[in-house]
């Protein structure tokens, strides 16, 4: 249950980056979260409004893209995208794979802003 501190870090990071766009309003923030990142997407969404309140991100939308786990099989030399996180086996040969190529991501991809029009 550390989702509130996670979204608070997101709000902080985006707010910092907003310095380059004075007066801009944030419409949307996009995250990439791996299936092994230990966070619950619904909790992130639930906490978003609380964390964004009173900041330039208030009223913005949080969009979370969940990335499935991808393992690499030494024997086959291929990557397999897994359906869950209960078994880490190559989808071709069925062997266990220790190498994780995707699934631990916890990152801010981008944010969308509405820029203030320059008035002459």
């Amino acid at each position, binding site marked *: 249950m*550390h989702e509130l501190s996670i979204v608070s870090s997101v709000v902080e990071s985006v707010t910092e980056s907003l310095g380059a766009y004075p007066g801009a309003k944030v419409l949307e923030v996009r995250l990439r979260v791996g299936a092994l990142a230990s966070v619950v997407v619904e909790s992130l969404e639930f906490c978003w409004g609380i964390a964004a309140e009173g900041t330039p991100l208030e009223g913005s939308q949080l969009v979370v893209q969940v990335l499935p786990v991808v393992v690499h099989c030494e024997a086959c030399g291929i990557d397999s995208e897994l359906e869950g996180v209960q078994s880490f086996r190559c989808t071709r040969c069925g062997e266990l794979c220790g190498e994780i190529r995707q699934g631990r991501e916890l990152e801010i991809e981008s944010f969308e802003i509405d820029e203030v029009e320059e008035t002459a």
Partner: protein
Amino acid sequence: MTTRIVELRRGILKKNDELAAGLRASYAAAGVLVLNLVSSPGTGKTAFLERTLRELKARGARVAALVGDLETDNDARRLAASGAPVRQINTHGICHLDAEMIGRHLDGWDGVTLGGLDYLFIENVGNLVCPSSYDLGEKIRVALLSVTEGEDKPLKYPTLFNSADAAVITKMDIAEPCGFDRELALRNINEIRPGIRIFETSAKTGAGMEEWLGYLAEARSVRNG
């Protein structure tokens, strides 16, 4: 209305990751092996660590421990009985330790410097979810599981077990009355973290401790690996 998409591509826990990278560099420079112990509440982390500290000290190793809990310094007092320096970190409600807390508690620790240690153990807050996201700069993350918890714990908490470098099964002395299915537990751990080293231990009888201590000595001899 002019909208614009600003690419950020930044790790959400970037600050923690940067602090952890700094800690990792200072551990390596000091030549101290740092381990992060993670489990549910009640697995027996403290008893296991107490025995580990005692046995390492008896072999002449210089050891210390940082121990995280929401409240109380009960665990630090228990661990201090081993004679090793122990410092309590109270998180006051926060469900995990982070790199900033570790750095802060390494500073001004009476009589303890990284350079004067062979091993530093960090006992995380009892929680099998959140600690997996927070790098503490450790070289070895240890996931612990007791025989009373059910063999499917690794399947229920895959994110933590998958991020571990070693697994320790505790309370093996009561495995039989608990109806613990050893084969199934080993299989489940291996399913989630293929090839991981697994130690079957009892802090009470000392079972499995030789193998565990051998692993620690070996890991320490591989400097900065």
